[in-house]
Each structure stands twice: as structure tokens, then as C-alpha cells.
């Protein structure tokens, strides 16, 4: 194991102090002289033709500066899959038709928010209501209303994976299990609602501050939808209060802010209300998962046949990627010698689903993990043992998908079983108490380039100075996950500097090096981290020569940057301070600044990701048999994220994952009446709160990922997956209710218990 000086330490987050003091500036905090406030008019219909829009009354309201509809826009579609333009199905403002309740129809900007709000009521829209579909089965019926003309079947993406011979695998099985699971949509519920502020220079160039995970993608798509050149648009990401996948596309308010700033010559800001976020915001895909798995008597897996239908809502958003990924995640964790997947992404007249923490994994792995538990019981094998028997290990190859480089999965299962006293508790718990397990694997960024960027996936620029400081520039987006801190730690480690020696400038498309695909898919640490290391090594190349010459070192001597010095590895007194070394190197090169560019683009890494994280989680619950309420008593987690760069940050990620997992399993859901979301506030959208958090223990499994920066890989997003199956399995262990349709509610538990007592079934 490599020894580090800053990596692996609980370095305080660089954003902690300013956030704790409330002085961090988020987009909505920003005010510019003459700034106008924008509001969006949203469709009250789930599916309707727009016959006519009259904005004249709104436009003549005193204080209103601009009202736009699609007619005022270039009407250019966008979407993140630029490589396949037919998947780009969205306009900033609805053209001819609305497809869900909340679809953006028009925008107003005015001297204050209240006036803009009042103007919305004055816009007259004549709709012709169309038949609508709200679930996948109805949408796929022949003769169902067609939601997008280009897609008469309403199935916008078909994705198939196949290796081995599934039928033969099942034929050779002693036990075959077939189940249908349904999983529901939940909200990202990031604390900072979306916000965007646009300003136009006298020369027509646009600057957009926006709460986004993907400044580069916003820059590119804003350019194409406005018919402008990419570099005439500058996107800046200020502090962002969470994204979780919900802020990774160009969105209507970003477009409208930019266009209306151009039209009025004044800065324009849009900030969504919480109600809008719940009513029309992106959400996790509801899915119907049909899964068939085969085993031999001894528990060896033989085959898996997985069919998933994603309820995509009205637009593709990140649905195509989720469709692709949930098929890949279906083949993860265990060694399936034969595997077949068919995923279909289906349009419905509901708010679009999109990427959300786990990106298809929480849904796909829920089915995987529950079926493992069902099979374990049927085969008479402990669920932990069945998992260990089939677990993927380092070096495993998943045909067409990837080779697993580092893998601490078996170690994770063993560790979590030990720390939770699994074997003992499985047998001897009090009545109403139960213990259950769930596992996960997740990607460290995608290798796919559906966005079709011409740039490296991540880039970094490092400038070093004779005062011993360094300046790191990167387009990577810290959205609260802590990447600024991690990237600084990586640079500090590589250059032997302290955190306070490093200044960082990030996520500004005009100032930071092109490019970065954004903060999603757990890509930032691995990809941006590697780019930083690449740049730092180039810096060292530039200064090592002078230092070597200065001390007349033998050519076989290696130099190192350590403890603020540049020195010989074998004789540390042959060396000088980092700043002196920089000054010397600069003098040797006629004063040229010492600057280096680094980049990372995965190549030859299969079809999915350069590296996989793994882990296992155990939940202990108590179920009240009279009320059906589930209380999670404790969570244990063992996970493999490679080198842990910042333990406290990783533990924060874990706490957040458990909080989201609790909500996904037990309390969060959208209450829908057809296409209308009824629970549009935090009183009725039941996100777990601090008081609901169970005590939790964690063990980091020690592995080193060769493709990762300093051995690191994905941490925290994969952990969104195991919590729901672990809780679900624990509930089954406690009272015998097996949840096949998330979420687990008190009502479902009680109904099931009643059924069991009627039929005389004995619970486990």
C-alpha cells in the first residue's frame, strides 16, 4: 500500500466554512444591476395541442419587460445524446403541443417576481385536450395516443445485451425463479431549487450562472438551441446545493434566461419554486422489472433473463442512458454465465424521469438482490453464503461490458456480515425484528461519448509559482459532493504541497480548460482526478530538470515533491523548497510561467466504465405488527471505493445515501392523480429527516484501483442501491412480508400480514 501525506486524511472541505457561515453565493443569491425576474407558464394539461397563445395582456402589464413563447425562439430541439439526434426530443418552450402537466409553455420577465407571477395569469392559452397515458402498459397498447410524432410506438429506446445461451442455462438449472418487480419514482429533492441568471455583453456574448452539474453540456446545448457559437456563451457554476442527477441537462429556464437577456439587454434570473420542482422536476425512473434467474442446487448461478420497462415520462431526458445502464447493472455483482437483457424506454404523459443517484442501478439491483434472497431461502443457503459463492472478483470479464480491475466485493460481504453479527442475528432476533442484506456495484464514470464531445472527458490546468503556491483550474463541477476538496488533495499530494498552498478555479467554461462532461455517473474523482495528476506530472517534468542540474545529480536519481520541497528521493538534502524550484525552472526558461495541461479520456475500457466500486450493506429493522411501521434500527456498510481520498467526505456520502435509501424504501413517493403530482411540498413529500436516521457503521475495504487517481474510484453513488433491498429483506425477516413493489408502506405490510393470518401462513 502506497503511503500518502494528504490522501486518506480527513482534510476539512474547502467549502465548509463559507457554507456553515451562510456566506456561500448560490445562483439565486446573485443580483445584477437592472436584473429582471423570470417565471415560466406551465401546462395544466397532460397532453394537449396548443391552438393559440395570446400574450398581449401579460405584455402590457406595467413592469413586464418581455413575454416569450416558442414562436419567439429558434425552435431547435435538444437533448444530451447529441450522437443520436433523433433522441433529442425537447424544446425549451412547447411547440404546438404539451406532453405533461408542468411542460413549459411561455416565459415572462418583469421588474420583480410578483409582477412576473401576476403576468403569468394574463397569458391566454387555448388548448385542445388530447387523450393521455400515465403508465407504461397503456402507453404500449396498440392505438395508444402517440406522444411524439417521430415515435409512433411510444418506445423511444430499445436496448439489448446478450451473452452465453440463456435457454441452455435455464435448462441446466435445478431452481429457476421468475418475478416481476415494480419500483416507483422519487424526487432528487436537492435543497437548492434550480436557478439561472443570464447577462449579455454589449457584443452579444452571454454569461450564464446556473445551478447545474454540467456547465459544458449547458454551454454546448445553449449554443445550438440559440444558434450561437459555443464560445460566445460562458457558463459559470456557482455553489450548487445538490443535483443527484436532476441538474444534468439544458433546461427551459436556462434557455429562457439567456434568450430574454438578449432580447431585453438586461440580466434575467429564473429561480424555481419548490412546488415547481415537485410538480415538474425530473425524477427517478419508475420501472417494471421482469427477472428470471437460474441456479444449480449448490447455489451456482446459471443464467439471468432481464426485461425492464422504464416509465420515461414525456421526454427522453437521461432515460436512454438509464436504459443502457440498468441492463449493465443487471449483469453486475454476480457471475452470470449466461445473460440476456431487453430494456425499453417508454413515453408517458408524466414529468420526465431522468438520471438520479444510481442511474438505473437502484431499480435493477433491487430486483437482483431480492431475488438472491428469495433464492437463498428456496435453496436453503444463507443469503451471505449464496452471494459469496457467486460474487464477482478482480479480473472477471463481463462480455461486451468490461473487465473488472479492482474488486473488494467478497471482502465487503464478509466484513459486513461480521460487523453486523449476521449469522447470530439471522437466528436469534426478538419477534418483530429482522436483519437483511443488499449489495451494489457502480461505475466510476462512463466511457461512452453520446454527448459526442470533441474534447477530453476531463481536463486540468496547473500553474505553479515561485511563492510556493499552485493554481488548479478545472471544469469539474463540485455540486456539494466535495470534488473541489478532493481535486486539491490530489494535486497537493502529487506536488508535495499543503491544501492552503492551492487556489482552485472551477466550472467556468471560459476560464477553465476544455472540457469536462460534468458531475454525474461518479466520474469526477476518477476522471478529473486523473487529469489533475497528468497536469501535475507535467509540472514536475518542467522543474525536475533544473533541480537535478543544480545538485549535479546522477541521471539515475529520481526526484520527488514532498513536504513543500523538491528533492532527491534518496538524499533529501539535495533539494530546495517548491517555490525556489519553480523560480529556478522559470529562470532557466527566460521567465516563462510554469503551466501544464492534463487530461483524461478513457480508452479501451470496454463499453461502460474504467472501474467499478462494490459494497454490501446490512439493515436491522423493527416492524410494528399492529401499525405496519418500520423502524430502521441500524445500518452496517462495507464498501470498496479503492483508495479513500477523504474519509469524512466518503462517510458524508454514505449518510446521504442511507437517507435517500430510507426514503426510497419506506416513505418517499409521488402521489399522482393521472398526470398531476399532488404532493408538491415537503410536508406531503415524505423525505426522511435527521430524526429518522439510524445509527450506522462503516468499513472501507482496502483495495487499489490501477485506473484510478492514487488508486481511487467511485464512492457514494453506488451506495444509493443497497439500502432499499437491505431494508426490504430485513422486513421480510422480521414479519414475512416480501416487497415486490416499492415503496414498503405500513398499509402493504398490514394487508400482507392479514392475508397470511387468514391463510394460516407462518411468517419467517
Amino acid at each position: 500500500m502506497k503511503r500518502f501525506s494528504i490522501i486518506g486524511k480527513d482534510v476539512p472541505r474547502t467549502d465548509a466554512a463559507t457554507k456553515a457561515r451562510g456566506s456561500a453565493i448560490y445562483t439565486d443569491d446573485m443580483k445584477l444591476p437592472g436584473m429582471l425576474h423570470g417565471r415560466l407558464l406551465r401546462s395544466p394539461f397532460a397532453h394537449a395541442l396548443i391552438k393559440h397563445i395570446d400574450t398581449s395582456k401579460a405584455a402590457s402589464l406595467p413592469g413586464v419587460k418581455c413575454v416569450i413563447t416558442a414562436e419567439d425562439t429558434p425552435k431547435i430541439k435538444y437533448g444530451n445524446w447529441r450522437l443520436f439526434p433523433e433522441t433529442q426530443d425537447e424544446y425549451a418552450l412547447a411547440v404546438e403541443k404539451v406532453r405533461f402537466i408542468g411542460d413549459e409553455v411561455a416565459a415572462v420577465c418583469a421588474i420583480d417576481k410578483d409582477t412576473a407571477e401576476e403576468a403569468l395569469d394574463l397569458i391566454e392559452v387555448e388548448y385542445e385536450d388530447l387523450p393521455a397515458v400515465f403508465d407504461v402498459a397503456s402507453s404500449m397498447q396498440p392505438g395508444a395516443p402517440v406522444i411524439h410524432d417521430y415515435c409512433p410506438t411510444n418506445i423511444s429506446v430499445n436496448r439489448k445485451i446478450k451473452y452465453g445461451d440463456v435457454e441452455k442455462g435455464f435448462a441446466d438449472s435445478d431452481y429457476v425463479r421468475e418475478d416481476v418487480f415494480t419500483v416507483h419514482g422519487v424526487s432528487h429533492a436537492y435543497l437548492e431549487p434550480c436557478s439561472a441568471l443570464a447577462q449579455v455583453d454589449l457584443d452579444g456574448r452571454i454569461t450564464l450562472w446556473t445551478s447545474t452539474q454540467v456547465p459544458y453540456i449547458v454551454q454546448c446545448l445553449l449554443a445550438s438551441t440559440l444558434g450561437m457559437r459555443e464560445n460566445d456563451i460562458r457558463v459559470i457554476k456557482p455553489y450548487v446545493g445538490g443535483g443527484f442527477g436532476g441538474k444534468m441537462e439544458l433546461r427551459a429556464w436556462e434557455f429562457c434566461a439567456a434568450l430574454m437577456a438578449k432580447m431585453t439587454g438586461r440580466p434575467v434570473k429564473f429561480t424555481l419554486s419548490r412546488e415547481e420542482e415537485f410538480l415538474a422536476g425530473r425524477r427517478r425512473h419508475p420501472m417494471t422489472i421482469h427477472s428470471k434467474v437460474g441456479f444449480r442446487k449448490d447455489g451456482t448461478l446459471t443464467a439471468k433473463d432481464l426485461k425492464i420497462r422504464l416509465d420515461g415520462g414525456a421526454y427522453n431526458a437521461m432515460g436512454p442512458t438509464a436504459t443502457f445502464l440498468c441492463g449493465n447493472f443487471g449483469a453486475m455483482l454476480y457471475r452470470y454465465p449466461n445473460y440476456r437483457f431487453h430494456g425499453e424506454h417508454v413515453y408517458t404523459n408524466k414529468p420526465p424521469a431522468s438520471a438520479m443517484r444510481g442511474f438505473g442501478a437502484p431499480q435493477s439491483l433491487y430486483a437482483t438482490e431480492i431475488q438472491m434472497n428469495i433464492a437463498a431461502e428456496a435453496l436453503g443457503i444463507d443469503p451471505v453464503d449464496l452471494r459469496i459463492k457467486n460474487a464477482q472478483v478482480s479480473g472477471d470479464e463481463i462480455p461486451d461490458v468490461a473487465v473488472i480491475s479492482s474488486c473488494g466485493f467478497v471482502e465487503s460481504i464478509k466484513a459486513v456480515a461480521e460487523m453486523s453479527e449476521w449469522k447470530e442475528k439471522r437466528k436469534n432476533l426478538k419477534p418483530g425484528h429482522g436483519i437483511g442484506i443488499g449489495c451494489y456495484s457502480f461505475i466510476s464514470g462512463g466511457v461512452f461519448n453520446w454527448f459526442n464531445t470533441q474534447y477530453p472527458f476531463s481536463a486540468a490546468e496547473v500553474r505553479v509559482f515561485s511563492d510556493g503556491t499552485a493554481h488548479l483550474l478545472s471544469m469539474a463541477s463540485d455540486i456539494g459532493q466535495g470534488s473541489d476538496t478532493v481535486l486539491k488533495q490530489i494535486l497537493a499530494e502529487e506536488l508535495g504541497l499543503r491544501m492552503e498552498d492551492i487556489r482552485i478555479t472551477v466550472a467556468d467554461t471560459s476560464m477553465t480548460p476544455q472540457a469536462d462532461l460534468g458531475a454525474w455517473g461518479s466520474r469526477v474523482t476518477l476522471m478529473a482526478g486523473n487529469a489533475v495528476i497528468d497536469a501535475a506530472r507535467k509540472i514536475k517534468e518542467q522543474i525536475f530538470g533544473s533541480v537535478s542540474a543544480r545538485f549535479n545529480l546522477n541521471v539515475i536519481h529520481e526526484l520527488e515533491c514532498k513536504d513543500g520541497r523538491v528533492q532527491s528521493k534518496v538524499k533529501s538534502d539535495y533539494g530546495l523548497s517548491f517555490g525556489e524550484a519553480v523560480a529556478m525552472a522559470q529562470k532557466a526558461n527566460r521567465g516563462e510561467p510554469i503551466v501544464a495541461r492534463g487530461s483524461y479520456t478513457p480508452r479501451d475500457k470496454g463499453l461502460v466504465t474504467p472501474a467499478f466500486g462494490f459494497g454490501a450493506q446490512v439493515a436491522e429493522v423493527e416492524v410494528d405488527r399492529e401499525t405496519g411501521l418500520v423502524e430502521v434500527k441500524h445500518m452496517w456498510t462495507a464498501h470498496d471505493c479503492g483508495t479513500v481520498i477523504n474519509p469524512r467526505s466518503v462517510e458524508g456520502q454514505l449518510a446521504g445515501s442511507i437517507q435517500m435509501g430510507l426514503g426510497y424504501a419506506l416513505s418517499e413517493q409521488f402521489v399522482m392523480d393521472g398526470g398531476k403530482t399532488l404532493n408538491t411540498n415537503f410536508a406531503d413529500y415524505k423525505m426522511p429527516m435527521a430524526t429518522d436516521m439510524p445509527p450506522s457503521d462503516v468499513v472501507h475495504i482496502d483495495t487499489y484501483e490501477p485506473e484510478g487517481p492514487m488508486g481511487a474510484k467511485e464512492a457514494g453513488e453506488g451506495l444509493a442501491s443497497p439500502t432499499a433491498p437491505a431494508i426490504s429483506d430485513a422486513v421480510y425477516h422480521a414479519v414475512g412480508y416480501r416487497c415486490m413493489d416499492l415503496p414498503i408502506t405500513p398499509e402493504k405490510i398490514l394487508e400482507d400480514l392479514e392475508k397470511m393470518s387468514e391463510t394460516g401462513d407462518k411468517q419467517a
Partner: protein
Amino acid sequence: MRLPKFAYFAPRTVEEALNLLADHGEGARVMAGGTDVMVKMIHGLLKPTAIISLLEIEELRGIHFDAKDGLTIGATAPLADTASHPDIVKYYPALVHAIRSMANVEVRNMGTVAGNICNAAPSADTAPPLMVMNGEVNLASLKGQRRLSLNEFFRGPGVTNMIHGEILTSIHVPPPLPKSGVSYQRISARCGVDIAAVGVGVGIVLAGEACKDAKIVLGAVAPVPMRALETEELVQGRERAQELLGQAGDRAAQEARPISDMRASASWRRKMTAVLTRRALDEAFERASRR
């Protein structure tokens, strides 16, 4: 969202407040902590033309207890102060439990018991325990004072028997009788901070081992916090026993008139009425037997 334009007053005496209320007519609204009124205004559900804050009226702030007269909670006494008042902790533990299980720390620091009652939500947590303890409200108007039992106070969701021009100045609860016990049980889907999906208050007085008087109030299962009169009758004269608890629960569930909404279905609410009635009755017996 747009806050309506309104005039704001913070009078120093009840009389001043009553005059303001009369002067500003139907559009005027009395406010204590504002944790319900402001939220409704922000969401456009309430559009008062004048807000009359009671917070500056010294005499409405207090909480008084004496063994003879019982408890008086002033209109602007915050929930948090009420729940931590030593006499209330000692003599009215069910009220303390109700307050501690409602809202969150911030809201309990601002919100008031009087406001919780005047807001008249069917799920108001303080209503069932106050009602089973024979709580009353003191109402002031320019015409004088009147006292109204909480049993007669609620008319529907958000609607009470107060008439315009009246201000609720305090809530009065008689001193606890010997051998009496009160319990409040509530449930919601989210364990930590949530609006009650069902709440049940039970108050009983024992004569020997048997119940000589019972009051049972069901919250969030009818348009108002409702007395379960048949269940009360069933409990009358009976001793604590599993069988009785079961019967009482079932009867209360029959009496309840729940609806399905986004917080819970009617059928789950009915089941929970039975469970919580059992639990509350059991705890009330337990508490009564210890006094």
C-alpha cells in the same frame, strides 16, 4: 409566491386588538406565532387585508397553574414553553407528548397551542388531549367574555365557532382529578417530523379499578377532532383488560369517519384508530392507577 398586501398591527392590549379587529372587518386576521397563517398566505390560501399580531400583548403570554383552578395557557405562549413548563410536565404529560410529537423545533418555538386550536385542522395534535381533559377556550370580544368547551369549538376543517370580532385569549384546563389518567397516541407515515395521520386522546377517571368516566377523542379521522361517544360508553364501568382494549379499539374504528387522502387511506386510518385507541386507553389506565 406572492404575499397579498396587508396592514400589520401589533397592539399592546387585548382591548386595542379587539378594536382593531372590529375596525378592519372581515378581512382582518388575528395572528400569534404565524406558523399556520404565514404559510397559508405565502401559498395564496389566505388573503387577509390586516394582520393583528398578539405577540406584544403581555397578558396573553403567560402559562399559569394552580392546584385549585387548573391550567391556563395564554394565547401567545409558544408550544415549546408549554411542553417544558414544569407543572404541565408534571400534571399534563399527554399534552406534553402531543406537543413534542408535532412539527419541529423551529415551529414549536414560534407556534402556539392557541394557534393550533384556532387553525382547527382535523389533525391538530393538541386538540384530542385538551378535549379529553375538558379543556375550554376563553374568548374575548368588545361585547365581553365567554368561555366555550373545546367539545363545542370545532365546526369543520379550519372552521370554528368563534365569531368575527372574537379573540381567543387563553385555553383553560381543569386540574387533574385524583385517579385520572390521560394519554395521547398519534401516528404518521414518516416517523420523525410529520403531520399526524391519526391521533387518539383518551382520558379516564377510576373508581377503584373500574373506569367511572371516559373521554375519547379521535383526531384526523373526521372533519373535526371527534368524540367517540359509543366507545366512551363501552369503557364506562369497565376494568383494564386486554378484552376491553380490543373492544374499545374496534368500536372507535367503527365510529371514525376517515377519508383517503395523500397522507393515508381511509382503511389504514380506521385500523390505526383501533390500534391507537387500544394503546391510549391502556396508557390512560396505567397513569390513572398510579395517581
